[in-house]
């Protein structure tokens, strides 16, 4: 099971840095980042990190609202049209996601695509059925940084 850390953030000067300061202090590496904001002055920061459980505990201890949220990570080709090919497969699988973001891996020919869906087991089954490769959590967390 793969988790991202989701943090409730107000859109205010210095609030994102408060999060990164906690991660830096604990030497937690950020693998991928996605910031998503509403018109109401707040948003949610989604992070894939080297140690999500530790990040979750430290951020909460630091007074922030952090949650561990399960995600599905699939592999795609790192070439023009790679995302389009992947999305065609996801459409065929019938998986509708609420949020998604990507990350290039430095092995030169592949990238990871992070999907946030309501029903994780169902999504995993459907994606596997159309032949997509779901990345194991230790690979997601351990992705070498560029």
């Amino acid at each position, binding site marked *: 099971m793969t988790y991202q850390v989701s943090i409730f953030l107000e859109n205010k000067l210095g609030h994102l840095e408060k999060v990164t300061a906690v991660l830096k202090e604990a030497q937690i590496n950020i693998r991928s980042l996605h910031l*998503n904001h509403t018109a*109401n002055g707040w948003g*949610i920061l989604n992070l894939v990190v080297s140690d999500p459980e530790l990040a979750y505990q430290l951020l909460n201890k630091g007074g*922030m609202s952090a*949650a561990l*949220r399960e995600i599905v990570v699939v592999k795609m080709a790192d070439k023009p049209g790679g995302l389009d090919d992947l999305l065609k497969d996801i459409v065929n699988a019938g998986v509708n996601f609420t949020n998604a973001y990507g990350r290039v891996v430095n092995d030169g020919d592949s990238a990871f695509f992070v999907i946030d869906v309501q029903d994780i087991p169902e999504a995993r089954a459907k994606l596997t059925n159309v032949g997509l490769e779901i990345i194991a959590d230790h690979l997601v967390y351990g992705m070498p940084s560029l």
Partner: protein
Amino acid sequence: MYWEKELEVLDRKNLEKLQVERLMATLRQAVNSQYYGKIPEINKAIKSGIHSIEQVRELPFTTKEDLRGDFPWGFLAVDKREVVRLHSSSGTTGNPTVVYHNRHDLDSWANLMARSLFAAGVRDTDVFQNMAGYGLFTGGLGFQYGVEKLGCLSIPAGAGNSLRQIKLMRDYGTTVAHAIPSYLGRLFDVFKEEGLDPRKDTKLHTLVIGAEPHTEEHRLRIQEMFGVKAYNSFGLSEMNGPGVAFECTEQNGLHIWEDAYVVEIIDPVTLQPVTDGEIGELVMTTLDRRAMPVIRYRTRDLTRFLPGECKCGRTHRRLDRIAGRSDDMFIMKGCNVFPMQIEGVLMKLPEVGDDYRIMLETIDDQDEMIVEVEVKKDWFKGDLSVLDRLQKHITHLIRDEVLVRPLIKLVEPGSIPKTEGKAVRVFDHRKK
């Protein structure tokens, strides 16, 4: 069943007759003070006499500003050597509000306190631990004298130091305790940390809670935690302190002692009496205080009379729990809004924390009410749509309650600055 049966079940007609007599005596006493001596309506009422209690409305109000304005001796109606105690507010903003008592006043107050506790089922066989601060705050000595009058074994524990409170309770078999409601949650946590359960490891059967407005939900939580009955106590230092109004064992409204006070509920804007049963500002006149009578004091507390008679048989009317303070009221888009209404909505939602802030701003020439709400940490699951729904949900609930559409701002837990002492909730930055 009753501490002073004759007075507590006195029929309304005779109760009002007693009030009229005592009001006349109070006016005669009041004009000995510098402040009331100069008020023509009071001198006039003394001359022409008062024949029905409704005539109290012909007298002028006394406000907190009046009390502070004639600091320190302006309201004193006896010779200084007769005064034996004063209680006073902290006075961090301007002059403190000070109230003087002579021996008669302290006796009368202790008696009301004993009557109140008796009505809540406390007896001389009880061991009473008072966890309120002793000193200028009336919750300490006010309860102390009443508890002694009633004849309980009293433990003047004072506020705080939870480990000592627990030890006292266990050493002496405390059966009744008094505390402010917000302290009891902390005390319960310390019980748990010590591996103790107040339900099993103490003899408590009754808690008396007051001095802070609290909701019925809060009372039920306290009863559940300690396995006791919790009774609501209401008082204010200008009217002595605790013992002004108290719940009887019916736990349905607080009997306000009408042989000791004339009680009115008025519309804070028109200053006219509200229809019986409607919420308004509590106005009180002392009827049995000699060193410092206070006439038609605007308490700023909002409440209402509960209609109907109480099953306990007492004829003194019942107040509903305090719904807020009239000086917190603000007008938004033509509607009167009380912060307690908004608090009432928020505190029912498990998703939000205890702190909130109401900001009144002018945005593009339009007045807006922005309510900042803290999202509880353990409730946050990282889902944007859930937060969106929560925001809309709160917007609708508050709109339905106060008839003004608020802008709800969800903020990070702990981001609303804590205020020292009484919480400041409303910030008005509107262009006037």
